[in-house]
């Protein structure tokens, strides 16, 4: 069981490193999104600070959906997905490995690059740390939910747009509380604990259920 997990994780990371374009697209998109607002809005510090939490989460949401379309469809087209389904180990674990790889390639880079946004938007140091932390616990939810939609739309026409249409509304709770946590962190004396706890709960729930649902969806789509 663990062997299939490790194999698939290693494989997906290897593939991404060979082909690099995915990571770059995601990062590029993220940076463009966060740098476009200050240009239009002007450089008033207060407004920028007010917008920053929402902008960073929306940038994360959209960037994460960019790579979703190819999450399973690349494997589907060359037949390796069948190999994975037919491997004598739990399909949910294999799916989990794929989702983890997706997060490592799209979520994690965003977490790492987010201080740049703090710079653009004049965020205080504390808020930057809060931002990195909530991104760290929130972005996995995006990959988890996205995987379900990606599995359901496997091999369908208009993949990218269809996946986003299905998945973006489902991202809303993460968006609301993720942005809420960062905003709250800029108000002194208010605890961000409730936000963090909610995000953690989402994260755990999605990690428990999503691989399982995704595996079921994959089996349906493969027929």
């Amino acid at each position, binding site marked *: 069981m663990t062997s299939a997990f490790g194999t698939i994780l290693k494989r997906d990371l290897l593939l991404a490193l060979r082909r690099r374009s995915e990571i770059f697209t995601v990062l590029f998109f993220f940076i463009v999104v966060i740098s476009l607002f200050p240009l239009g809005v002007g450089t008033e510090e207060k407004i920028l600070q007010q917008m920053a939490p929402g902008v960073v989460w929306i940038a994360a949401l959209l960037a994460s959906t960019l790579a979703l379309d190819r999450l399973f469809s690349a494997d589907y087209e060359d037949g390796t997905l069948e190999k994975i389904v037919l491997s004598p180990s739990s399909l949910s674990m294999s799916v989990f490995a794929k989702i983890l790889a997706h997060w490592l390639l799209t979520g994690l880079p965003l977490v790492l690059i987010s201080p740049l946004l703090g710079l653009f938007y004049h965020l205080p140091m504390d808020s930057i740390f809060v931002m990195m932390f909530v991104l760290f616990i929130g972005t996995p939810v995006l990959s988890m*939910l996205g995987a379900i939609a990606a599995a359901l*739309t496997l091999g*369908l026409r*208009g993949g990218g747009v*269809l996946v986003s249409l299905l998945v*973006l*509304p489902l991202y*809303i709770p993460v968006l609301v*509380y993720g942005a809420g946590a960062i905003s709250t962190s800029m108000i002194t004396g208010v605890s961000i604990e409730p936000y963090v706890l909610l995000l953690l709960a989402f994260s755990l729930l999605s990690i428990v259920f999503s691989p399982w649902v995704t595996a079921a969806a994959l089996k349906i*789509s493969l027929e």
Partner: protein
Amino acid sequence: MKINWFKYSAPMSFYPLAGKLIPLFWIAAIMLILGGLYWGFFKTADILNDQKQYYRIIYVHVASAWMAMWLYAVMVFWAMLGLIFNTRLSYMLASATAVTGTVMTIIALATGAIWGKTSWGTYWDWDPKLTTFLILLFVYIGYIALQSAIDDVRRSDKASALLALVGLALVPIIYYAVNCPDPTQCASLHQESSLKRVESNILIGMLVTTLGFWMYSFATTLMRARIIVLERERSTTWVSNLPEISLAETSNSKIEARTETRS
């Protein structure tokens, strides 16, 4: 063959039964909606003075809003039934329900927006209730989009049912998030049911129209389900033996056409 009996004959017995029920639902729907609106427009004149006339939008607005939510639950129910028992009819009913649900959501949004213009002075605001409904519309559209993107019937049934289930798990969370962006101040999330503040006279009109909308939803859902049955079972013998399909007996199909227009 034992298991298949249920699976295969269900649409066959459903089809004529639904055909008989549809006219009844139509009659009920038209009578209830007209009755409710009549009551609302002519029996409540004393309550609604000129400044509050716009309140009459409530009859269609609330009725459609309730149906929009309720039909989602119905859709998920059928989808779940389909996933558990693998009955084809439940899948068909699920997809038939989705479209009527979408129509209801659109009506609720449109009438709500118009109401908003009269009462708040703007068509759209990012009020939690409105936002929730917009998201509900997205979820409906997603379901329909997924279904129509898949050609294979078997896959489309199962995939969209799974999506509906995921939606069922997430819609309450989304509702909570939208209504309560600040979790520290959500001790009493639930705003008191707005119904209590509504005049009983108006309430009557509202409830009667809602019931009418309900009947309407039954009627359209069944009509759509019958079409889906026809499309999917077109190659079976029972479909080609149907009076409306048979080639020779034109008189029969005329009768069918007449009942069709009557309903």
